[in-house]
């Protein structure tokens, strides 16, 4: 395994990032605050939606708030940990990935450490508070199985979103300017997971919900936690399959990443 020096090197990279990002104090403060506020506003959107309609896709406010809070927390945590991998396209375009490749450290952890975005801590803090508040409001009938589900879902969801971020970033190895495709699956994925899968047309539901696995992040666990049967007839074990989906997604993402790194040919003249 790694020698003690390696861990220190990563820690040093992260610390350097934190120092550099907090350099312009006022700007950083505004940035953190607005990140946190963003989470709050996204949650308020659900309330606005229920202002104009008593149900959404056959679900009430309680269920939708639970799936929305689960999805938001998983996404924000993934965004904090690996979200900045989307800057990979800049490295590939400018050829600066070379400097990372020649260092005696692993490429992926190095990139994640170098681009660590501290301001997203604000988001994660806000969305965890929100998740707790929503779970209290939803007045869930706690059973041991539901407690396990609650512990499992945010972590598996975070891993799944992280894999999607990584896969999306890998597009840059082949199509340098196509970074926006990834947004459809990352930010789009979050939007998808926030609301009941019943509202989406069949193709989108199959691709995003079960192809990418995003229905396992918010929709299915929320059904399990609130004791609601799936109107689409999905079996209960679907709610338990998020860790398996996350593991599968990571396997694919790492394979694509390896292929991508080997495909990389640098740039410039």
């Amino acid at each position: 395994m790694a020698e003690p020096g390696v861990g220190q090197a990563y820690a040093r990279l992260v610390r350097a990032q934190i120092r550099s990002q907090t350099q312009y104090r006022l700007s950083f403060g505004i940035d953190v605050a607005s990140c946190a506020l963003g989470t709050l506003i996204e949650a308020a959107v659900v309330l606005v939606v229920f202002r104009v309609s008593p149900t959404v896709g056959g679900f009430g406010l309680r269920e939708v708030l639970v799936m929305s809070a689960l999805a938001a927390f998983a996404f924000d945590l993934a965004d904090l940990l690996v979200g900045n991998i989307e800057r990979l396209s800049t490295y590939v375009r400018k050829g600066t990935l070379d400097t990372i490749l020649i260092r005696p450290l692993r490429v992926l952890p190095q990139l994640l450490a170098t681009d660590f975005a501290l301001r997203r801590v604000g988001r994660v803090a806000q969305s965890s508070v929100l998740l707790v508040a929503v779970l209290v409001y939803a007045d869930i009938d706690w059973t041991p199985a539901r407690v396990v589900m609650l512990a499992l879902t945010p972590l598996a969801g975070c891993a799944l979103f992280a894999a999607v971020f990584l896969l999306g970033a890998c597009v840059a190895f082949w199509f340098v300017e196509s970074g926006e495709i990834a947004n459809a699956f990352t930010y789009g994925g979050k939007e998808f997971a926030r609301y009941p899968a019943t509202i989406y047309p069949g193709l989108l539901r199959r691709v995003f919900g079960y192809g990418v696995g995003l229905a396992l992040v918010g929709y299915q666990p929320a059904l399990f936690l609130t004791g609601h049967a799936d109107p689409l007839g999905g079996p209960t074990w679907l709610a338990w399959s998020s860790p398996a989906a996350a593991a599968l997604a990571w396997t694919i993402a790492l394979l694509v990443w390896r292929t991508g790194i080997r495909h990389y040919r640098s740039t410039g003249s």
Partner: protein
Amino acid sequence: MPGLACSSAPPTPHAARGRDFTMSFASARPLRPDRPPDRRARLYRFGALFGAGFRRWSTYRQAALAGLFTNVVFGVMIYSLLRALADDGRRPGGYDTTQLATYVWVGQGILSVVHVWSWNELADRVRSGDVTADLLRPIDPFEAFLAADLGRAAYAVLARMVVPILAGGLMFTLYIPHRLHTVPLFVLSLTLGTVLSFALRYLVNLGAFWLLDARGLSAVWLLASGVFAGTFFPLRFLPEWAQAVLWFGTPFPGLFQIPLDVLVERPGPAQQIGSVVLQLVWVAILIPLVSRVQRAATDRLVIQGG
């Protein structure tokens, strides 16, 4: 004589970093080569920069394709949600389902025309010091950047607006405007929305003259423009008082909600024209504000590095 050469030598780096290099660029104005001011030359310059903006963005074809894919995916998702709200014959915010479809799909199309996302070009140039070059040019930087941004918007109309509307039209039923003046009014409203969006983005970037780093302000802008312009949901879903505050207290509805409301004919004919007048009022407020802030900003500019 060696003594003379010594006294005309440049100041030491330490002195240079102080007040000595703090120039007021307002005094650089008389350098304009075209006095007396020539309207035709000004218009020609504006047109040239507009064309340059258009050509610059038209080189990113792959990015435009990727963006279109994302627009279409988001279009389906947002429309699915709004459509679910209109179940059982409800009219959320007073829109029927075809009006909602048009709101979403034309909305996805105009997102990148109006460009409600972050834009850091000027702020980056302030941080790096490159902004000196912009200030020494014989054209007001706001005018120059505006021309380039309108060129960008014109390209976005062709590359980013048409496809989402066609995609939406193929999958769902869109609303066809009934009034004769609606389409020209929409074009005017969209242009004003783009100018408003640019003026606000420029203001955010001017913040870099004080903070050196506009990322914080940029994040606030991103949040405000997203929610208060109506890109998350039509603002008519909000309570009346909140709508009044947003429409009359902030310029944000003018970026997105007003052009779309004009197109789907949500308000009556008088209100339809009135909302475009409201956009005009906001333009008339913001442009003088931008020049005042710009003057204050350039007066306190210290070029970094040196």
